[in-house]
């Protein structure tokens, strides 16, 4: 986290956590508002206290810095996110690992899932452009973000906004904008509103280049329907800007926004009173995102509520941060598909399902990710620990490899048992030499796979 001065936060609009803010709480904050702790981070953050710790994330000083070695592919070449398959995923994953503006990256990921757009409809270039747009607006103003998204080229292609024209409506964006982005299914609009909203959104188009594909996205007056529309009871000659304004000023929007945002950060249900307080603050700020994020990150339920499964890409970045590594292989792109989360390829327009990240198949994918993070398992010659290393020391060494994040006694004892089994199973003399490597490699494999390490 940056050491520079941070602006003090204003008065939170809702309840603030008053319990102990130690390393345990700091670790949860780092997993949920960033991409997991680097070694030493929890201690440093805990010393700041809750408010300054949150401010260091929500109000980072200066431009983002990327800490550590630049990413490269397996041959040592720089990444080419625009032209090489999978490099786009690795390019952003690298920012998740190395950026000192951790919450900005985390919020960019939130918007990527909220306004889920897939590169399958456009190109890596347009997706990376969209990614920068979302990063610039990560903690900014939701109304502005919605305007930007509505006419973003990747989104225009993804939900057919570029072929929605006067007399030839295409409802794809007009519907999802209300259902998934601003109001929620069935919350204060009907089918006719979808039709009329789609008319308001007409006019955007693009040209096609033989070499570059879709280019030159623009508003064409000829294609816009200038007629009168009635949206949510409001009658006028509405256009795309009006469409966005009518959506965010709809009475269902603040509760949709606050609930959805809360769900990305907190495992407990949003209490009705907190909801009202956050909605009021959101509306009175003119749809600013940062004050609501700050209030959520300081809320008692953030620290006292149940754990959350860490999303695959967050957990993967966390593996690299904890073990002080950066991107040295583009295998991360296909490993990501096994874990169930490839950046720039959400499963559909509703984004990833944050309620269900694991099943047998994606669990196996996560183990593949650990295998990849342990790219050089310990061999005889490289074994750094002495011949007298006992079972408990072996466990501590493996824990240190992953940044020293402690596990519950249940998991610790379980892994100590595995260590003992491996050491007892080796009876031949030559096996005695190698069992310590096997034990250390096995413990390193299992620590990030424990339910403790995979949740925060």
């Amino acid at each position, binding site marked *: 986290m940056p050491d520079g001065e941070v602006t003090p936060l204003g008065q939170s609009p809702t309840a603030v956590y008053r319990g102990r803010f130690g390393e345990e709480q700091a670790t949860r904050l780092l997993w949920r508002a960033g991409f997991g702790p680097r070694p030493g981070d929890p201690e440093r953050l805990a010393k700041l206290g809750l408010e300054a710790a949150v401010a260091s994330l929500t109000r980072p000083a200066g431009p983002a810095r990327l800490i550590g070695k630049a990413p490269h592919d397996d041959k040592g070449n720089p990444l080419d996110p625009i032209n090489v398959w999978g490099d786009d995923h690795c390019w952003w994953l690298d920012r998740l690992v190395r950026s000192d503006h951790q919450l900005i990256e985390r919020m960019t990921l939130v918007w990527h899932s909220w306004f889920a757009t897939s590169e399958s409809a456009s190109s890596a270039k347009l997706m990376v452009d969209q990614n920068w747009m979302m990063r610039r607006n990560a903690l900014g103003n939701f109304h502005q973000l919605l305007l930007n998204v509505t006419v973003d080229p990747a989104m225009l292609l993804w939900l057919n906004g570029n*072929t929605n024209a006067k007399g030839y409506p295409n409802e794809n964006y007009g519907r999802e904008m209300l259902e998934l982005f601003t109001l929620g299914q069935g919350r204060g609009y009907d089918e006719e509103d979808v039709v009329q909203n789609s008319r308001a959104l007409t006019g955007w188009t693009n040209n096609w280049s033989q070499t570059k594909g879709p280019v030159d996205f623009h508003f064409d007056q000829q294609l816009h329907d200038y007629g009168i529309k009635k949206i949510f009871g409001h009658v006028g000659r509405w256009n795309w800007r009006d469409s966005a304004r009518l959506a965010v000023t709809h009475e269902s929007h603040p509760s949709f926004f606050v609930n959805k945002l809360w769900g990305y950060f907190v495992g407990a249900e949003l209490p009705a009173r907190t909801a009202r307080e956050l909605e009021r603050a959101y509306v009175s700020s003119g749809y600013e995102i940062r004050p609501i994020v700050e209030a959520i990150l300081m809320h008692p339920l953030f620290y006292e509520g*149940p754990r959350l499964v860490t999303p695959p890409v967050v957990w993967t970045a966390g593996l690299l941060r904890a073990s002080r590594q950066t991107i040295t292989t583009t295998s991360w792109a296909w490993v990501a598909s096994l874990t169930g989360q490839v950046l720039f390829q959400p499963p559909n327009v509703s984004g990833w399902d944050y309620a269900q990240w694991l099943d047998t198949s994606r669990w*196996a994918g996560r183990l593949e990710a650990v295998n*990849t993070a*342990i790219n050089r398992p310990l061999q005889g010659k490289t074994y750094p620990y002495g011949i007298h290393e006992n079972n408990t020391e072996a466990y501590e060494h493996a824990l240190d490899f992953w940044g020293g994040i402690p596990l519950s006694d249940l998991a610790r004892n379980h892994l100590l048992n*595995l260590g003992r089994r491996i050491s007892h*199973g080796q009876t031949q003399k030559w096996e005695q030499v190698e069992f310590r490597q096997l034990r250390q490699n096995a413990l390193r494999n299992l620590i990030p796979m424990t339910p403790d390490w995979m*949740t925060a």
Partner: protein
Amino acid sequence: MSDGADSPVPAGQIHCDGFARSQAIRRVLASGKPPVAREWDSRMPIPAGVSLDRRRFLIAAAGGIALVYGAGRAGLTDPMLGDGIAQAATLQKADSPILVSLFMQGGLDSLSLLAPAGDPLYEKLRPTLAVAPGVGVAFREDPSLTWHPSATSLANLHNAGKVLVFPGIGYSNEDMSHFTSRHYWEVGATDASLTTGWMGRYLDIAGVAGNPFQGLSLDGQMNPLLATAKNPVAAIDQPNNFSVWVNGVWGDASDWTLESASSLGDKQRNSHDPAIRQVARAASEVGVVRRTLNPWTNGPQNSADSSGSKNPAAVYGGSVTYPLSSGDDLPARLAGLASMIAAGIPLKCVALTTDVQFDTHSSQPQTFDTGVQLVSDSLAAFQADLEARGIDQRVIVHVWSEFGRRAEENSSDGTDHGAAGTSLLIGSRVNGGMIGEFPALSALDVNGNQRVNVDFQGVYASLLEQWFNHDAAAIIPGASKFHRYKLLA
């Protein structure tokens, strides 16, 4: 691997080669793995506890799998096998019914699948997308309709009496949101708050606590249809595509490490914290899946190419030709499923989703034609595979989509979300033909969509009662108020 099968005879012991080999094979048999072909010799005595049938089965090309349940009973010392899968395999009769659900995601355009080709109203609504008269097979029950030419293999299957078509299926007050409508079909009720799939609720009552294969997703991840409240279900990609390994760990230590991960999951699978529970259950069920699929993942099939350049049936020991497709593994998934059913894996409900997304808002033919062709050809091959293996009486495939599409095409050579759609039931025992009727284009609803005449909840209730012989009222909310249809011949 470290089961010792390939180890040289340790110094100080004197064995002949034959004994070493038979010991090796016994060890392999006990572990539930198939013997490697070069080790097997039909003249060798059959290990105690292995029936003659099993032995013949072993020699067959598709062998191995049954070891887990048959010969592998010697391996019932394994707690999970003993408590779970093997028990389920014993309880599940060889003729127990299996229901396979194939979700054609995105909202399939049923007006192209079964087209009123030549109808002037149809051609007016679909100036660019209309199916031309005469290009596809005529629909047997309604001569005004034509199958899309991409669906010819389905049409042939229908003419053979093995496809039951619902040309106007859905529910009242159709929701045109993908997510809501799909959810309704998945949970088996027009209820947004249900969190278990309709198949999952069936498995909670009719399934057991130790057999995740009773509900198998072939999507590479959990399929919501199978979401249970208590009993485990499994998700795999293809049977030979589930492998787990630990980097830098080998021999027995590798197995112990993976067992340790799963047994930690066993300990925490009822944790009070839902997030811990989610991870723990996945880890626990990985242990079961790993042991059960061992013959596939470690067997000779593993080296075979199932990515699309070879007939996937050959990979799984079948004799039927599936369509070749690079990039879309639907044929391989279905071929793998046929081999799993043949091997006696205790399946009840299987769910899979097409890779192709049929949400054709633009350039519809590009997606629809190739997508429907692949699905139709794959389903026809699957049916033929089941017949060739003699297990077709046990299987019904339900094909569905979350809604149909707007009768009038849009300006992008595509179609927007609609209401009534088409659903299919496929199998040797279905009541081939049509239920309901094609919803007239002259009587569209207020949104310009085709009207529903069969409620999917009634079809689910009928499936539960007729196929699973189970009370629908316990599974489908308000089951009594839905019509029942005669689904079986």
